């Protein structure tokens, strides 16, 4: 039987070391293959090459024995190689019928569209996958699993050739556990119809519950492809990380247990479900987790950027939800992720970017004293080593690392009781990164309670006294002391705890 998908010696580098190095694999029709690996292992690059988004340096691929022209998205589709990417690619204000026609069009009948027939067709495609919902509802009113099913139904549509291979990129990343189960059934149905299914996932319950076989990539190389049967979770973690997990002793940062400054009880926001946590004065607590675990919502939920329920207290005083101004008045500061969208006023000066949170500091005699403001800001720019050190320069003229320092200065100037950082060194060069870490250390040393959410596990190890690991909206693990290690954190975000955890 011809393999549904064959990849041969695929290699790719982006101006530097190879991100994909001589990777080969093959999948049989009806097989469900899990593609597993850490961030940076090369799996997203492989998917993008197959989707025609990148051209590999070397290598080839075949779908059902036919050579796959690379670097061309359309040809993948016509050969039967179909994709459902993480963002699903649906248009929210159109209904299911229209979304299924995206990129394909409708068969026209004397210049018009036969809507009844199209609706029937859409309903059937969804029913084949085990889903029955109103195809006239717009996508933004569908549940996440229904949307994913719709994206799969679209991918599975005929279009000049029957689908042979379905690639799902982190299909359950944004799904709560119950809906994820439904998606497993869907994937099985697709495989039963003879289509090969390859899915990328960080969730071990999917790998073990759904896949027949697993391919592990590490540092751009193919480590192993083997049946799931007989593989243990620990075994899989070792394959992903590349070594056995021992107890690693680092210079564990110990914090004298001072008073609790930030207290969170029953936090619910997005996927976050009933989360309790506390941060003491001078403590740096990390928040880790993969996409969809809730890690990316914690920071904004606490500060009031997202709708939430539950109780957040600073020094015993309750912080109302959705009120960043109140959170700020009560001593909380937030350095948000994606500074371009959430923190930086690109067209404003550095001075304005720093003082925007409390310009009233310079209010005297009925006007803002700009010279006092300027010299104060200059001091902060000096202290944080921002380059160029000119308060009147425009934010957009600075490099990412310097911009981040300006945002950090904004909050440090207020001497917050609680400092929340979301991906603090995202898009920041190595030098600025180290500077920012030192500044966070200093803030904590002065008694600030710090919460850092980050996908950079090395950063968490460098900064934190302890790390809270989130999985599917809840705190699944707390890592501190002897377990503070990049790989331990990674393992905790994607699987179960190591046996013999502290």
């Amino acid at each position, binding site marked *: 039987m011809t393999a549904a998908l064959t990849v041969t010696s695929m290699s790719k580098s982006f101006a530097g070391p190879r991100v994909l190095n001589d990777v080969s694999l093959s999948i049989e029709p009806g097989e469900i293959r899990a593609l597993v690996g850490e961030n940076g292992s090369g799996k997203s690059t492989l998917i993008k090459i197959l989707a025609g988004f990148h051209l590999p340096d070397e290598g080839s691929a075949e779908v059902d024995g036919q050579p796959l022209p690379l670097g061309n998205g359309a040809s993948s589709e016509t050969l039967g190689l179909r994709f459902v990417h993480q963002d699903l690619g649906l248009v929210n204000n159109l209904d299911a019928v229209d979304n299924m026609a995206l990129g394909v069009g409708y068969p026209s009948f004397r210049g018009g569209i036969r809507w009844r027939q199209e609706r029937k067709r859409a309903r059937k495609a969804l029913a084949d996958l085990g889903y029955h919902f109103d195809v006239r509802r717009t996508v933004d009113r569908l549940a996440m699993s229904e949307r994913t099913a719709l994206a799969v139904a679209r991918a599975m549509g005929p279009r000049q050739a029957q689908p042979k291979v379905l690639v799902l990129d982190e299909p359950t990343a944004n799904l709560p556990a119950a809906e994820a189960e439904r998606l497993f059934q869907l994937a099985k149905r697709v495989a039963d119809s003879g289509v090969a299914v390859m899915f990328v996932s960080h969730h071990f319950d999917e790998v073990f519950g759904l896949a027949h076989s697993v391919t592990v990539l590490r540092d751009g190389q193919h480590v192993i492809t083997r049946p799931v049967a007989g593989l243990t979770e620990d075994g899989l973690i070792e394959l992903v990380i590349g070594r056995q997990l021992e107890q690693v002793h680092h210079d564990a940062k110990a914090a004298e247990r001072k008073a609790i400054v930030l207290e969170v009880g029953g936090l619910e926001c997005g996927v976050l479900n009933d989360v309790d946590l506390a941060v003491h004065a001078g403590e740096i607590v990390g928040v880790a987790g993969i996409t969809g675990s809730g890690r990316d919502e914690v920071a904004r939920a606490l500060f009031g950027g997202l709708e939430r329920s539950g109780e957040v207290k600073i020094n015993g005083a309750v912080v109302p939800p959705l009120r960043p101004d109140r959170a700020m008045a009560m001593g909380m500061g937030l350095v948000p992720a994606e500074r371009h969208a959430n923190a930086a006023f*690109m067209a404003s000066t550095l001075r304005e970017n720093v003082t*925007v949170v409390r310009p009233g500091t310079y*209010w005297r005699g009925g006007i803002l004293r700009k010279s006092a403001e300027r010299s104060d800001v200059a001091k902060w720019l000096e202290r944080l080593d921002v380059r160029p050190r000119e308060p009147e320069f425009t934010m957009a*003229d600075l490099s*990412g690392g310097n911009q981040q320092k300006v945002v950090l200065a904004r909050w440090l100037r207020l001497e917050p009781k609680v400092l929340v950082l979301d991906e603090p060194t995202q898009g920041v060069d190595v030098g600025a990164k180290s500077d920012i870490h030192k500044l966070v250390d200093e803030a904590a040393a002065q008694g600030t309670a710090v919460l850092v959410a980050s996908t950079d596990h090395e950063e968490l190890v460098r900064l934190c006294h302890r790390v809270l690991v989130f999985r599917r909206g809840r705190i699944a693990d707390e890592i501190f002391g002897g377990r503070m290690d990049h790989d331990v954190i990674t393992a905790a975000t994607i699987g179960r705890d190591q046996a013999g955890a502290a």
Partner: protein
Amino acid sequence: MTVDKQATSEPGVEREAGGQSAHGRRKLFVVLGFDRFSGLYVWAALILIFSLWVPNLFDTANNARIIAGSQAITAMVAMGLIVPVACGAFDLSIAGTLGVSCCVVIWFQANHHGWFLGIIVALLVGLVVGLVNSLIVVRLHVDSFIGTLGMSSILLAGTEWITGGGQIANGISPTFTAIGQKQIIGLPLPVFYMIALAIVLWWLLEYTPVGRYLYGIGGNPQAARLAGIRVGRITTGAFLLSGLVAAFSGIILAAQIGSASPDVGGPYLLPAFSAVFLGATQVFPGRVNVPGTLIAIFLLATGVKGLQLAGAPAYINDLFNGAALIIAVALAARAYASQRKA
């Protein structure tokens, strides 16, 4: 609102001035203030041109006084508009508010209720319009352009209703018209109101925290929220202010012309927007500001007046203002783009 859009390109390292001679040229450019005060230079050039072209008609002090007087109302409306535009909202209802306010204060006098009460009610109308605008934009999340456009139509209906479709000019108290027509040192009072308003708004925008919040919201509303700025509250205040200023301007206009008619407000809309956007390229380039707007108003008025004196037809006003608006926004976009290229 900052006239320019958010930077979409990656901010790079500090930009090179680019070549020795280019650097030298650029320095001279900046020192002479061409980038920030080009409007003043153009204005001076226009005065020069017209003084030579229509000498006996143009450069009389009288002419200058006439221009100042006639532009005072437009200038005030435009300055009121700066505040919502700074925080990213369009207020297309200002002309309608001006019209209704003018009609109200005239109607009160024509019906013997007194000009004082008329002024109070007219100002209240301005506040109410601002409040409704803010409810529509902040609570109902209607786009400000659409929302205030609808409001302006409603206000037009309002002027039709108050005036009964025609002009009202009876029962106007001379004390009232003195507010708009009396002259001090040869300048009509409205010029002084304009100067006072300019000072207040300049202070508000440049020297108070509220001014920072306004520009912050206009620059990046999401970041403004996460910097603890109360976006809804500030936006509401901005609409209230522009409504109040428009109403005040309507009262002064009523005093100036001593009558009210349904279409009295319409002609003020586009010149106000042209001035605000053209003004955003001056003095504090990249954002709407008071001195820039004033320069723009008088620049445009001088140009139009000069052309009219030189025999241009009446419609030159609309042509000039329309062209100025387009050129202003295009210049701003180009300046922004070249600045952002690292």
